[in-house]
């Protein structure tokens, strides 16, 4: 009953890398420098989130059509 499809495991690796970029663990604590009203760490986080969105969008749009599907 399970749906079968060629697994794309590398996608999970990309998501884990993106997760590590989105969460600002690597940014110095206590840094309140800002640009355009956003803290610098928040800009890095938002950029990584935007990358995550673009990547997710690409994965959905490049979804392989199974033979005979619909």
């Amino acid at each position, binding site marked *: 009953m399970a749906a079968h499809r060629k697994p794309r495991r590398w996608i999970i690796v990309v998501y884990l890398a993106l997760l590590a970029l989105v969460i600002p663990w690597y940014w110095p604590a206590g840094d309140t420098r800002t640009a355009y*009203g956003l803290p610098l760490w928040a800009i890095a986080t938002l950029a990584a989130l935007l990358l995550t969105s673009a990547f997710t*969008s690409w994965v*959905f749009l490049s979804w392989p059509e199974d033979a005979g599907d619909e």
Partner: protein
Amino acid sequence: MSDLLPFGPGAWAFIALYLALLLLLGWAGRAARKEDTLQDFYLGGRGFGFFVLLLTLYATQYSGNTIFGVAGATYRFGFGWLISVHYMLAIIVFYLAFAPQLHKLSRDRGYITPADYLQDRFESKAISLIGSVVMIVALNNYLLAQLMTLGRAMQGLAGPLGDEAYNYGVIGLALIMLIYGTLGGLRAIAWTDVVQGGVLLVGFFVLLVLLIDQFGPLSAATARVVASPDAFKVARPEPAMLREWVSYVIVIGVGGALYPHAIQRIYAARSRRTLNLSLASMTFLPFVTALVAVIAGIYALAYVPGLEGAATDQALARLLRIVQENSQLGYAVVVLIFSALLAALMSTADSAMLSISSMFTKDIYAVHLNPNASESELTMIGKRCSWVVVGALVVLAIVLKEETSLIGLIDRKFDILVQLAPAFMLGIHAPFLRKVPVLVGLVAGLIIALGLAFGPFDFVVAGKVWGLHPGLYGLAVNATIAVAGSRWVARRSQILA
């Protein structure tokens, strides 16, 4: 909620017109009905195209909490609440794990409710029943929260008559929702979602423009926060909050993707391509919705300082009041934003209502109480179920009016919903997954999640263990039992054979 935003007759007329439009769409949904079947009533005949699917997914996913709750949390935690942008995006990412495959299966096998998949995949009445009960409990909780927020919104508007306005607001808006929902089913609800999603999108855009126009650029607001005792809210979150960040992203990402009303929208997509296109577009909506709510929270922190405790949830309403009092245009815009709030609340509540009714009718009544019922009989039972459930929740919403600890309940909702992840997200890919280990894992996960959440444990701080939701611990055990147990069962059968 909205702390005293007094509206005049013009504003009320606008809101009344908007509510009348929802009723009209309910009637139109009924007129467009093709047959008296569960598929037509609960899945809109599986004919949703890109535009309707995108806006119904959007309006359903973003509730009233997105506007006021996120702004309030940002007021308390600062920019760290960018967590909300991340978890709203994570819901779409977790759809990747199962939505396209589930859509294909739903068309091939004629699923109506999420439990139809569970029954088909595992052939276990116990898994299907527990799955349905978990989803019904989670959705009732969600629907109750939306009704209470609706009441608080009306309470805030009515000033001295607040208490009565709360009651009438909850009853009146629930009644409107029931009428259009039971008239036209998912088709009507999705059409109202198109209007509600549109109002919501415009509302968020206008809110951003309004804040900049009224208070100046974001840089000025952030500079005020940096110069205040709240400066730490601009800095990177502390390590403990970074752990919570991961926990929120997984719990809300997985739990939100498993919302039964969202799963039924996956079934309702006209084609897989339509579904994928809608979900691909959804990935960008957190930036025009949750991010705007975070920015609004920062403006509130800068220009309405000093709020504490539950009052922080009124941060945005207080900001809007300043705007409303300053110009006629500001007043009109606040009315529009209030309408967006109503749209967000009602679009989430009506979808939850319909989904509860479908699960009770199809998974419980038709399986356990009356297996010989016809489709039209079941549709009628489903409509009655909506009235009974919403009626009971309206009474609860009025009785629990003074309860402010709803966020605790909402966290628990995701803790139990995520326990269905192995059955849906792994079960759809892994043919080796067997019903007994999945069932044992599900029960163990639920016991751990609820035990940790409600048990008398000192190590549970603010509903979390070491910053992680109890549901995550339950999920780890649950998934381990499901996978390792299935491998063990397979090996044992091989040896015995």
